[in-house]
């Protein structure tokens, strides 16, 4: 990437030829791994190829959020992250595959086909930003994947594909143009081959946006500057709860990375995050409560699929939603609706909000002692498609247990490769206090 940008700067570069090569290569990745839902049709213009997760709106390019219900939807506007990337010379190569509306850990709840892991096509990419991570790994051209996380959807696929996934502080990147899953947690971030790509991507797409009321009002930051920064003296907390039930080899790899950081002058300390077990239930209750209201708008009236049926509007809505939503989307709508209905609302939704506050406090206290908290990214190696089928929804949801807390609390995280096991990648997740992306970039580049 660095060399590419230097060539562009030195004008030692044929743009037309470059774009053609990129589009051809992207098309091959699409055919090989089902990483894209829609390829950019018009000949793009720019110097920096970007792929965009399909729940992020792109003007004039179909955006489905991985759902049949939006099969025909072509947004009339670009998401702010996309328009910022375009303003920096980015061009969209295509829309990457994902679990429907982000509802999944493996990118297998896909209406348009599940992306295959480039390390082993029998295995999953991780989700929900599976297509983004797949392209980031497989691309033989400079590229930044604009991805998105609600409960771990950047960390999981980054770990499963051996890429770097950066999930920034909530509010750092505008959500304008992001098709909502759970608005209080949804974050647009980036996946790249290395920490340089991730830092560059974040520098481009972050910044204040008046169109998103939760956007932070602060100036642009160059995260690339933090690449290679000295990690000497940095304190790393290692929470022991985050190693419960984690694959032994992965645990070993994560510790190797921590020791590597120690050898560079960082120190570490094991500690306890006692509220860990509450994070995943609280996450699912809040996320699904919000999701079940977000998905209410999809009813075949104003956009998306429509159908000629007889009956009243209730029957029409039901018919379209029956047709358009996949099984997992229906499951999450039902769960989320239940959690916010009167009689259950106080016991689930309101209680989960209170737990979220307590978990934030617990992390904030830890960040008084540590610059970063290190955990495994995922408890398992990328599973085979055939293994996923035997998992119950509850077992699948528990795969998110290492990523839900930082997502629930809006803390920035970065997932960095931590070595392979039998040819399959594993990842270390580094978490920092709000707006400490610079520390994460420095630590991540030191791990590489």
């Amino acid at each position: 990437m660095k060399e590419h940008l230097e060539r562009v700067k030195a004008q030692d570069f044929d743009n037309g030829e470059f774009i053609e090569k990129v589009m051809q290569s992207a098309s091959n990745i699409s055919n090989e791994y089902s990483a894209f839902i829609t390829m950019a049709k018009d000949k793009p213009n720019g110097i920096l190829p970007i792929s965009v997760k399909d729940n992020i709106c792109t003007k004039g390019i179909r955006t489905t959020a991985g759902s049949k219900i939006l099969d025909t939807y072509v947004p009339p506007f670009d998401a702010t992250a996309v328009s910022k990337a375009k303003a920096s010379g980015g061009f969209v190569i295509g829309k990457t595959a994902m679990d429907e509306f982000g509802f999944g850990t493996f990118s297998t709840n896909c209406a348009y086909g599940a992306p295959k892991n480039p390390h082993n096509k029998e295995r999953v990419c991780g989700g929900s930003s599976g297509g983004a991570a797949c392209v980031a790994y497989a691309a033989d051209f400079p590229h930044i994947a604009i991805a998105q996380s609600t409960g771990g959807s950047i960390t999981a696929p980054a770990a499963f594909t051996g890429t770097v996934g950066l999930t920034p502080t909530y509010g750092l990147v505008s959500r304008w143009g992001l098709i909502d899953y759970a608005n209080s947690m949804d974050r647009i971030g980036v996946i790249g081959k290395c920490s340089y790509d991730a830092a560059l991507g974040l520098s481009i797409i972050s910044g204040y946006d008046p169109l998103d009321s939760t956007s932070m009002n602060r100036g642009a930051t160059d995260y690339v500057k933090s690449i290679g920064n000295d990690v000497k003296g940095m304190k790393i907390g290692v929470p022991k709860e985050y190693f419960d039930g984690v694959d032994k080899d992965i645990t070993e790899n994560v510790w190797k990375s921590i020791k590597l950081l120690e050898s560079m002058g960082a120190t570490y300390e094991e500690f306890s995050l006692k509220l860990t077990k509450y994070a995943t239930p609280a996450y699912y209750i809040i996320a699904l409560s919000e999701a079940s209201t977000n998905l209410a708008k999809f009813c075949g009236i104003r956009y998306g699929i429509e159908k000629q049926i007889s009956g009243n509007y209730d029957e029409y809505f039901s018919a379209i939603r029956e047709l358009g939503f996949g099984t997992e989307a229906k499951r999450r709508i039902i769960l989320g609706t239940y959690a916010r209905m009167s009689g259950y609302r106080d016991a689930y939704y309101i209680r989960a909000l209170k737990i979220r506050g307590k978990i934030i406090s617990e992390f904030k206290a830890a960040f008084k002692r540590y610059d970063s908290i290190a955990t495994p990214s995922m408890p398992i190696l990328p599973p085979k498609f055939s293994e996923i089928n035997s998992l119950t929804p509850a077992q699948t949801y528990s795969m998110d247990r290492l990523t839900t807390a930082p997502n629930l609390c809006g803390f920035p995280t970065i997932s960095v490769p931590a070595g392979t096991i039998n040819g399959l990648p594993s990842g270390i997740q580094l978490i920092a206090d709000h707006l400490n992306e610079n520390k994460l970039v420095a630590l991540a580049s030191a791990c590489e």
Partner: protein
Amino acid sequence: MGVMIGLEVHCQLNTDSKLFCSDSQDHRGKRPNENTCPICLGFPGSKPKISKKAIEHGMTIALALNCNISRTMFFSRKTYFYPDMSKNYQITQYEVPLATEGLLSVGDLKIRIRRVHIEEDPARLVHVGGDITNSEYTLMDYNRSGVPLAEIVTEPDFTSPKQTRAFLEKLMNMLEHTGVYDPGKEATIRVDANVSIDGGERVEVKNITGFENVEKALNYEIIRQNSLKRSQMKIARETRHFDATTSTTKSLRKKEYEDDYGYIFDPDLPMVRIDDEWLAKIKRLMPELPDQRVARFVSQYGLTEYYAGVIVYTDKRFADFYEECCRSNGHPDIVAKWAVNYLLKSLNWRSEKISDSKVTPKGFVEFLALIENGKLNERFAKELIKEYVDTGVSPGELLYKTKLNISEEDLRDIIAKVLKENGRAIEDYRSGRKESLQFLIGLVLKETKKQSNPNEISKLLTEMMPR
């Protein structure tokens, strides 16, 4: 126990933009669905952004209703599926509304205000070939979608439909005075009324436009509930719809199915904080309220409480009209007398408001000047004001036209005839009964079919009176 009525009043707020996007709040004269954008159409990826002005208007209402204003507040999603909802949830306020615990007095009646909150208006539905319950198909117009509303919820303090009308009129007058509501922009006030009898189940009549209709709907509903009770049938808790053409209510849905809106905090809208400075600014900018205006009219213009009250409570623009006239006429008492006793009467007779009538302050001041200059006597003035309200032709011109309709020569002939036939009245006049002159003027006016000027008649009569 008797009748218990509570109201939920939805008032469209006079802001520049809609509640969550920059589209115009004012969509007069626009084609259906022209006044829309991805936000108010609920397009995927769009996000709401709160209008500060709408919150300020809400604060103004809350202050005018003597409410407690929350210093921090949230917006919530109220979820239900309906085609007028662009997102199938409405952004409103639930746990923490803008304001609570207010009071509005209407004469001796004190109505407690439970809460005031801000929410978005849904789209407008046009039921083709019928009403909401039986139309062939329905058209949707999202021009209104996202227009800011203030919802004012009363406690069930009304005991008769008539009281609700008096309250609503006072409330509307107050809203107009604060400037948050502008009926001139076709802003509407819609009312949901809850009514129960003898502590029975509560029935909600939704979406009534027009205060007269609120009264009618409630009257109908009380009769309906009483007759159910007399036949010992159950009064079901339900939502009903008011049909203005028949002045009856129809069942829309039974309440038990719809009570659960599954409210959650809207995660796209951060908490709104109202600090001392902001609240102080709104208090400082608080316009004059009707009761204050009445008091000022009494002190500034020397009006009686009665005249001041009629002028101010009729509607804001009538009071504005009065003040405008007073700026170019030095006799506020005379302006008030003619405005209340004659102008208002003529307007009421035509069921017109001053703002939609042809009457202008300039014309009315001209009219008053004609009286003061002796060109118009009181009796004829009462006739002329009606004609002015009817036609909008300026009073001076009306008078001029009237004069021209009959020549002085013809008028002299008519007067001569009247004098000849009424020797008795002439004697009375000579013996000092001045009202006989008025009697004679009346006769001449009648003869000329009112096409003459009483001042001129009076002049000629005294001149031609046999000595």
